[in-house]
């Protein structure tokens, strides 16, 4: 089935053919047996889909719909502010703690070493996760869906 034939079939099913296209379509139906068979098959499918519709929820659902959207917006903003504040405070606290431990001479060397290992390990983990996210994003087949 050529692309032109496919489009004529769709247009005929959906009542979207111009007069000229309809003439072409009818001529094809008369001369092309495969086209005729496909037309019959697709008409049956169209008949079935035409007899169905979406099942809609009860009216009560819509009463709370808008409120739920606004709650999501509020909570999204709240989580964002909470995250920013927490990240800044925790990072500052850790930086100060690390500085104090490394400067303090009384802290045993193995504690300093462990802290250094912990910091490097955490840094590698974060870089690895970020790199994976970037790789996944580049190879995401659904990425282009957003136009």
């Amino acid at each position, binding site marked *: 089935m050529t692309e032109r034939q496919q*489009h004529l079939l*769709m247009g005929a099913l959906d009542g979207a053919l111009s007069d000229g296209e309809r003439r072409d379509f009818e001529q094809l139906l008369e001369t092309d047996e495969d086209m005729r068979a496909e037309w019959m*098959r697709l008409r049956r*499918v169209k008949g079935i*889909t035409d007899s169905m*519709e*979406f099942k809609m*929820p009860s009216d009560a659902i*819509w009463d709370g719909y808008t409120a739920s959207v606004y709650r999501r917006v509020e909570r999204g903003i709240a989580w964002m502010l909470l995250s920013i504040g927490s990240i800044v405070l925790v990072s500052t606290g850790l930086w100060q703690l690390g500085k104090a431990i490394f400067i303090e001479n009384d802290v045993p060397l193995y504690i300093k070493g462990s802290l250094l290992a912990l910091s490097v390990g955490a840094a590698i983990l974060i870089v690895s996760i970020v790199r994976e996210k970037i790789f996944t994003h580049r190879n995401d087949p*659904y990425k282009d869906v957003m136009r």
Partner: protein
Amino acid sequence: MLVTTYMQQAYRHALGLVRSHDDALDLSQEAFARVFRHHESLDPERPFYGLVYQVLRRLGFNWTRDRRSRAEKLEKYGGWLVEKQRSPDPAREAELTDLRERLEAAIDTLPDREREVLVLKEFEGLKYREIAELLGIPNGTVMSRLYAARRSLADELEAMR
């Protein structure tokens, strides 16, 4: 006000994407919330509902992909369509229910982008041009996807007989 105007449309479109009442409600509400939160990063030339749909289809496709990756059964999400006309005859009613279930199962087997176009055309009644605008694709692509979807449906329905 905008939410009230478009909520049922968004719900129906989400239902077409995910075929589950609860998930359609969840995703459509999330789409509105994301548009309100991130409106500055979205295409300002598009009408409001175009932005909502842009987010909604992304959420819907991701949801479908995640569900497939968790190997959950699609069949358990039946019952998202309903017969337009009921029959007082129990035998005919059972026949219609069976037909609806087969149609739902056949639609579930379609690739996301074909199912999306099919649902917008068949159950939303949009014109080719309106679907093309909503999805940002040419008219010809809409018709090609629709043809592929209908042909697959015909194959599936014949195989289920």
